[in-house]
């Protein structure tokens, strides 16, 4: 295949990958959360390995 052919194939693969991702992303976001679990959060008490302030499972000033 000519050089241009490879280029077109490469671009089409990347575009396809991106499209799949964006479609799944939009479907995931629009899908309503099932009734019973609006505000589920980490149910067990402390994720002891995450005392990094910005980590979303961070729980206050350490142990």
């Amino acid at each position, binding site marked *: 295949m000519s050089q241009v052919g490879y280029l077109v194939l490469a671009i089409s693969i990347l575009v396809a990958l991106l499209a799949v991702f964006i479609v799944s*992303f939009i479907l995931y976001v629009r899908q309503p959360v099932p*009734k019973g679990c609006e505000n*589920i*959060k980490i149910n*067990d008490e402390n994720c002891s*390995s995450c005392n990094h302030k910005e980590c979303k499972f961070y729980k206050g000033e350490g142990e």
Partner: protein
Amino acid sequence: MNPLNAFIAFILAIVSSMLIDNVVLSRFYGICPFLGVSKKVKSSLGMGIAVVFVIVMASLICYPLFELLKLAKIEFMDTVAYILVIASLVQLVGLFIKKFSPSLYKSLGIYLPLITTNCAVLGVVQSNTDQGLTFLMSLANAIGTSVGFLIIIVVFSCIRARLETANTPKAFKGLPIALITAALMALALMGLQGLFSGIQL
């Protein structure tokens, strides 16, 4: 390689990548969720099953994808393509769980976004490509690794529940004692090394 040998090699490859060089204790992919595993066996089991599904699906998709990338002469784009595939897989798995089983979503939903940044998923898929394994062997590697990951985090969460009641020295409370236990587990698994040294991976 008649089918029987192929099947035996397949099973040996699964058991070898599950126990002998376990993904967490000997190849060091997936330490982040391993250390953060909770003391409740149920939630770590849930996370493990989600990881098993994502790893096996990812390695099934990424093998033909890499062949396609080779065809288009852009093998260097493999990491970017894999991370996009893994991210969309996690979204799709989340979508199915949200739609079909709210109860599963209740116990598993929180862990799903964590799987994209789980080193084990990209680690397995990337090392399958780097080693140039055949499709069968990369599938065996994926199954073995992910089930090994599941076993190890479930066992570790039971040990961790037990560790809470043990009177460890104050400085070792929490993570340090968990790491020392992980070291003992790694030593135990190292004993199995060389069990199937004859197989052609």
